[in-house]
C-alpha cells in the first residue's frame, strides 16, 4: 500500500492534465511496436500449423498471378525474339535461269531491310529433303522416275528486326513481282500465333490475376476476422483500460503483415517448384523453335514484387476485417 501511495504522489506531479493525448513519445511508441511484433511472433509460433495453412492459402492465391505474370512477360519476350528472326522465303520458278537467280540475289543485297540471305540451290534442297526423310529410298525412286529435280531454288531472307510488319508485306509484294520469282512466303505464322497468345494471356490473365488477388485478400480478411473474434475479450479489456484505437488495431495489422509476407514467401517457393518442374520440357520446346531457352524467372525485382504484393494483401485483409468487426475506419 505504501508503494502505491508513493507511486500516486509521483504520478500526480508528472501528469497534471492526464487525459489529453500526449505527443512526441517516439521512444515509447517504438517500444510498443517492438512489443506487438514480439507478441505476434509468439501468436504465430503457438499456432504454427494453422499459420502454415494460412500462408499456404495466400501463397497459392499469390503464386498463380505471379506465374501468369511471368508467363505474360516471357511470352512477350519470346514474341520479340521471334519477331527478330522473322523473314521471307523467296521461291524461284522451276527451271529459273542462273542469271535470274543472280539478279534476284543482287536485288536482295541492295535492299536495306534485308539483314542477310542464303541461297539454297535445287540440288541442296533435294539433298536436305532426302536427308530428313526416313524413307529416302522411296523418295529417290520417285524422283528418278520424274527424271528431274522437282524442287526450285530458294532464298532464305532474314530481315531487320526493326522493320514493321507492313514493310515486310511491301517487300514481299515487290519481290513476288520480279521475273523468275514464283512465290514469296512471309514466315509470320508463328509470330502471329504468338501475338494472339500474348494478347489472350494479357486479357484473360489480367482478369484472372485480379480474381486471385481478391481471393488472397479474402483469405487474409477471413483469417484476421477469426483472430479478432478469438480476441474480442482482450480487445474489450484493453479498450476499458485506455488502449487507443491504434493500439487496438496494431496487433491485427501486424498479424495481417505476417500472414501476407509469409504468404508471399510461400508463393515464391511454390513458383520455384512449379518452374523447376516445367523447366526441362519448356527449354526443349524453346530450342526447337530456335529461341533463347533462358526464361526470365526469379530476378530480385520479381521476388520483391511478390513479397510486397503479399504484404499489401495481408494489410488490406486486416484493415477490411478491422473495419467490419471493430468499425475502425479512423486512425486513433
Amino acid at each position: 500500500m505504501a508503494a502505491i501511495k508513493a507511486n500516486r504522489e509521483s504520478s500526480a506531479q508528472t501528469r497534471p492534465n492526464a487525459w489529453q493525448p500526449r505527443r512526441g513519445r517516439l521512444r515509447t511508441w517504438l517500444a510498443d511496436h517492438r512489443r506487438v511484433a514480439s507478441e505476434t511472433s509468439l501468436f504465430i509460433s503457438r499456432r504454427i500449423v494453422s499459420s502454415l495453412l494460412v500462408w499456404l492459402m495466400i501463397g497459392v492465391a499469390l503464386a498463380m498471378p505471379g506465374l501468369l505474370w511471368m508467363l505474360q512477360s516471357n511470352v512477350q519476350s519470346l514474341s520479340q525474339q521471334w519477331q527478330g528472326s522473322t523473314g521471307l522465303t523467296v521461291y524461284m520458278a522451276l527451271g529459273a535461269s542462273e542469271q535470274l537467280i543472280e539478279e534476284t540475289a543482287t536485288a536482295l543485297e541492295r535492299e536495306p531491310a534485308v539483314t542477310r540471305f542464303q541461297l539454297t540451290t535445287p540440288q541442296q534442297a533435294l539433298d536436305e529433303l532426302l536427308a530428313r526423310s526416313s524413307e529416302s529410298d522411296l523418295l529417290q525412286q520417285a524422283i528418278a522416275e520424274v527424271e528431274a529435280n522437282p524442287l526450285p531454288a530458294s532464298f532464305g531472307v532474314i530481315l531487320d528486326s526493326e522493320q514493321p510488319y507492313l514493310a515486310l508485306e511491301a517487300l514481299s509484294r515487290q519481290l513476288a513481282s520480279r521475273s523468275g520469282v514464283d512465290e514469296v512466303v512471309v514466315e509470320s505464322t508463328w509470330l502471329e500465333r504468338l501475338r494472339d497468345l500474348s494478347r489472350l494471356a494479357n486479357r484473360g490473365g489480367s482478369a484472372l490475376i485480379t480474381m486471385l488477388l481478391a481471393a488472397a485478400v479474402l483469405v487474409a480478411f477471413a483469417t484476421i476476422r477469426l483472430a479478432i473474434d478469438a480476441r474480442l475479450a482482450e480487445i474489450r479489456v484493453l479498450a476499458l483500460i485506455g488502449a487507443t484505437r491504434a493500439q487496438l488495431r496494431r496487433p491485427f495489422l501486424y498479424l495481417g503483415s505476417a500472414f501476407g509476407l509469409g504468404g508471399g514467401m510461400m508463393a515464391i517457393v511454390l513458383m520455384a517448384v512449379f518452374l523447376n518442374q516445367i523447366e526441362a520440357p519448356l527449354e526443349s520446346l524453346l530450342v526447337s523453335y530456335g529461341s533463347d531457352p533462358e526464361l526470365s524467372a526469379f530476378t530480385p525485382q520479381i521476388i520483391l514484387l511478390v513479397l510486397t504484393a503479399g504484404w499489401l494483401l495481408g494489410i488490406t485483409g486486416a484493415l477490411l476485417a478491422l473495419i467490419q468487426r471493430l468499425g475502425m475506419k479512423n486512425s486513433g
Partner: protein
Amino acid sequence: MTYLQLQHVTQRFDNGSEGLSEVTVDIEQGSMVFLTGHSGAGKSTLLKLLIGALVPTSGRVVVDGSDISRLGSRALPWYRRQLGIVLQDHNLLDDRSVFENVALPLRVTHLGTKEIGRRVRGALATVDLSDRGHLYPRHLSTGEQQRVGIARAVVNRPKIILADEPTGNLDPYLSRQVMALFHQFKDLGSTVLVASHDIDLIKDQGCRILHLSQGSLVQDTDGPKN
C-alpha cells in the same frame, strides 16, 4: 471539492427504454459512494456513462471539470487511463498469467519493463496475491480472481475507481475483504464508486448511498464523514 457530477442526465436506449432519467448527483473527490438498487435500476448505466462507454441522451457527465461526453475518440482512452474499473465477472484474460493481467493497463501506457514489474508487484502485494503472479486465472479461486481484477484496476494509480457488483460472486468474508481494499484506496485519495445490490454489506460500510429505482435517483443517504 466536487469531482464527479451528473447534471440532469437522461439515458434513453434505441428500444425507447430509459436507463436513467434526469439524474443529478455530485460526488466529492476522495469519497467512497455506493450505488444501489434492483436489477435494471440504472446502476450499470450510470457507471457506463462515467466510463465513457455511453453518451447521455441529454445532460452532462462532468469529471474533474471536463464534460466527458464531449471527449473525442482520441481523448477518451487517455481519460480511461485515470479510471480503475472492477467488474463482477473480473474480465481476466485466460491466456495470460496473473502478472500479465495486472500489467495490462501499464502496457498501454508504455511504461518501462522495470517500472511495470515494480508496480505490478506492489499491486499484487496490496491484494495479498504476491505469490500468485506466475499462475493463470484458471488456477485461482473466485475470490482470488476478483482480487486480481482489483489489482489490475489500481495498478495504474487511478483517480477514480468504478466497481460494478464487485462482490457479486463472493462469500460474505471475501466481500468484506474487497470492501476493505476499496476503503484503503479511498484513504489514499481515490474517488470510489461501487454499484452493488447487497444492502447489508453496503450499510456496514458507513458510506454515502445513492439509491436508484427505474432510472431515477430516489434516495441519497449520507453516511458518516468520508
